[in-house]
């Protein structure tokens, strides 16, 4: 009787282990590609980080945003180019800035990893600012 009980227990554990193995295999092979998911999350984080950098670039008066010394107001989306050399302190991976198809800032890096375009005012007219990030 006891040996019969032990046999059933061992058999049950074996079935459970086989089932666990099968489910994990199926999930890995057919349902999820774990590596792809991890890479996708890393890319999302990178995109979000650089997106915030661009947002700071056009809204922070230490960088491109225009500062009115008379009213002491910092204007978002209204840019001036007097602080172009400080961009490297914000993010060294910024390698090119293009304002309405005119290159206003460029480093030696050439392999562009991601690019953002934003609408800004420069010299009183609407322009498209392209910010490129290199590797």
């Amino acid at each position, binding site marked *: 009787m006891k040996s019969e009980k032990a046999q059933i227990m061992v058999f049950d554990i074996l079935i459970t282990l086989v089932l666990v193995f099968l489910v994990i295999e199926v999930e890995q092979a057919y349902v999820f590609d774990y590596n792809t998911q991890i890479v*996708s999350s890393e890319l*999302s984080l990178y995109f979000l980080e650089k997106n915030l950098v661009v947002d700071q670039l056009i809204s922070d008066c230490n960088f491109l945003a225009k500062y009115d010394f008379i009213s002491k107001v910092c204007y978002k989306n*209204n840019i001036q180019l007097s602080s172009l050399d400080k961009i490297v302190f914000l993010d060294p991976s910024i390698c090119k800035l293009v304002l309405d198809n005119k290159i206003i800032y460029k480093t030696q890096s050439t392999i562009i990893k991601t690019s953002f375009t*934003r*609408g800004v*005012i420069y010299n009183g007219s609407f322009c*498209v600012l392209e910010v490129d990030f290199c590797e």
Partner: protein
Amino acid sequence: MNNKGIVFSLDSIFALIIISILFLLFFSVTTNEIEELTNLYVSQKISDLLITSQFLEINSLSQLEDNYNKLLPNVPGYIKINSSQRYLHFSKSNSYKKLISQNITYVNSFGKEVYLEIGVYS
């Protein structure tokens, strides 16, 4: 005695099914990340158009359309200034899944209230 063994196996199967469902839920959330980030980027561009339009006091649809096309080329959407509205790159035959829109109301230098609305379909 045999019943106990069957219950043990069934228990483990149920536990595995529940764990699998949790995995599915978790990964379906992460796959929406990219879509959410794209929506954020579009929202920022709409916001750019509204802020700059307010600053430049744009009151003609043609001027706003030019700016829209420069920033969002070939992207279906609409622009609205007060009661005038214009659809851009919009096709009625396409069934768009999502609309991202923003609006502002401001008082211009002539003391007149201006309503601006921009929407982007995806």
